[in-house]
């Protein structure tokens, strides 16, 4: 066997073993060591330790545990309930006001925490019963909660873009600038869809009884001031500091974590046990993400030493794709990978395999990253592996069927695809802001 063939064998073996369900980080390290030893002998050991140290001293990944920590603190600071109630009354004039307020709450909370599961389960307990009680359509209600909860991994400051930046060598600052408008565009499309459907068929989202919404403006303003405003300040100052170059992403993340602690003190929720919970969860999740990097960087070094990348490139050149066809094919593959895999694995392990091709076809890795970020939204929403749907099912009343929740997710998956098409036709949506700022 020639070396490139061995490289392909290595990739094939890896995919087979992923399906067996062994912890991926160690599978990657072991395959890197085994195949590296075959290719280069003892040198593989210094390669492994250098890649490990490379992850340990990587100044982009420092912001990962910091953003996680910020997220865990915000998640535990009881801001969500206040946020939902105040947005709900503030939006009372809007058609389908509860659904729109749910979307807005999910999007904002998920942006601050960056965690999908928590917001879906919490909003499933908070907003779902309220919507059902007023007579909202089950599918529509389920859809806004699941789709809204996933927006946090797209809208900056999101951890996913840091992982992509570290993997692809694209500046995180530019990625953040590039993702802002696509993120808002997707949230806007979701809202348009909800409002549009309600205008066509008002029975989907009946108006609230007036006694529930009849609250004086001064009080609504006060409610917003204690829920929406602190969180909005936290998010915009973290993002603003990064975009205007006042602080690096990791510095801004540290300030964000500190701000989150201050907010939780403000809500009288800060105590030692919630701090401990957040610290320990941060340690575990950071270990999970960063050990995956140790594995992936070792693996892809050995893969490229063996010449595996050239083989993959050769396959694509044989197909004689145009850049557009390549882009669509790549997105379809990533879409399909979203079924068996989680987004962190897709970004850390499979994006490096696509990247040389992205450059080969002359596509801007920044643009590709934003498309991937949009695409990965679907991996939470597309049956049969839609995690967001399972989270909602877990806490929904027993009479709600999983199929109803799936059916509720689907229109939002179409919105994501529309957003990707719009982004492809008008790349300026992503590329304009980075080009103005830098």
């Amino acid at each position, binding site marked *: 066997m020639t070396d490139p063939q061995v490289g392909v064998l290595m990739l094939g073996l890896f995919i087979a073993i992923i399906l067996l369900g062994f912890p991926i980080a160690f599978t990657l390290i072991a395959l890197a060591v085994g195949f590296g030893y075959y290719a280069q002998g003892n040198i593989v*050991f210094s390669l492994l330790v250098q890649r490990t140290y490379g992850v340990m001293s990587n*100044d982009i990944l420092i912001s990962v545990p910091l953003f996680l920590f910020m997220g865990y603190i915000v998640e535990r600071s009881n801001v969500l309930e206040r946020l939902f109630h105040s947005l709900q009354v503030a939006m009372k004039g809007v058609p389908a006001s509860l659904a729109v307020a749910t979307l807005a709450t999910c999007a904002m909370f998920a942006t601050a925490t960056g965690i999908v599961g928590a917001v879906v389960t919490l909003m499933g307990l908070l907003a779902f019963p309220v919507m059902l009680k007023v007579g909202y359509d089950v599918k529509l209600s389920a859809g806004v909660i699941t789709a809204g909860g996933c927006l946090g991994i797209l809208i900056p400051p999101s951890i996913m873009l840091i992982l992509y930046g570290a993997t692809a060598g694209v500046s995180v600052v530019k990625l953040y600038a590039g993702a802002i408008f696509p993120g808002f565009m997707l949230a806007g499309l979701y809202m348009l869809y909800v409002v549009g459907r309600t205008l066509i068929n008002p029975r989907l989202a009946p108006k609230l009884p007036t006694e529930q919404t009849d609250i004086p403006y001064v009080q609504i303003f006060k409610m917003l001031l204690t829920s929406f405003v602190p969180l909005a300040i936290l998010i915009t100052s973290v993002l603003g500091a990064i975009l205007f170059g006042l602080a690096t992403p990791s510095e801004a993340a540290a300030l964000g974590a500190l701000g989150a602690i201050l907010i939780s003190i403000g809500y009288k929720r800060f105590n030692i046990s919630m701090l401990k919970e957040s610290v320990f969860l941060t340690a575990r999740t950071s*270990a999970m993400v960063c050990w995956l990097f140790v594995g992936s960087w070792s693996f892809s070094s050995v893969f490229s030493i063996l010449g595996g990348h050239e083989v993959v490139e050769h396959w694509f050149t044989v197909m004689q794709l145009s850049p557009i066809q390549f882009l669509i094919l790549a997105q379809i593959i990533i879409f399909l990978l979203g079924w068996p895999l989680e987004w962190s694995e897709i970004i850390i392990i499979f994006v490096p395999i696509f990247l040389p091709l992205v450059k080969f076809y002359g596509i801007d890795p920044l643009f590709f990253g934003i498309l991937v970020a949009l695409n990965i939204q679907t991996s939470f929403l597309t049956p049969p592996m839609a995690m967001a749907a399972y989270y909602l099912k877990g806490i929904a009343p027993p009479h709600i069927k999983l199929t109803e929740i799936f059916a509720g997710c689907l229109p939002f998956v179409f919105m994501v695809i529309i957003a990707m098409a719009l982004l492809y036709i008008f790349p300026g949506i992503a590329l304009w802001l980075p080009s103005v700022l830098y």
Partner: protein
Amino acid sequence: MQRFLFFIDHTSVWVGKTFGWCILALTLATSYDVFMRYAFRAPTDWGYDASYMLYGSLFMMAGAYALSRNGHVRGDVLYRFMPIRWQAGVDLTLYFIFFFPAVIALMYSGFEYAKMAWVIKEHSALSPDGPPLYHFKSLIPLAGFFLFLQGIAEVVRCVRALKTGEWPQRLSDVEELEKQILKDAQQGMTGDEILAAVATGKHKEDKQ
């Protein structure tokens, strides 16, 4: 045997949690550095080195802790539908084919790497008067060692699951909020009860 398992678990958890506090130190140190830069135009000269060392120590030393909580991601499309004995059999085999070789390679290469840093008394070249790097680099073989230890405990778990058809219990520990909420819901708590538990941070386990 259970005591031996829990001893290893406790060690991994203790190491992971202790190094977990690096995140608080990282938050405060970085914030202080930024504050000094803007308020007094006097950024610290240790800020940069401290930041990656705290971050690196955090995730390296929490590796075994995450393993003890089954926290390293698996592609579990098929795995989750397998009977427990199959899961244990697959895990047991792959621990020996993949996990131990990987971790031993990491210990071996990390040891040589750290030894070199100690021999030349390596200091960080990233900042003037950089702090020593050899302690930091020594964490690589050390993290490998704790992973190795936890790997033994996991292998014992697999063997027992093969025998009994059930996964042995793990230590109870803080869970992700969504997992906690789903667990509460399965135990028959109503939505309002769960929300109240989340709001106060007092879930059922805590009361016991």
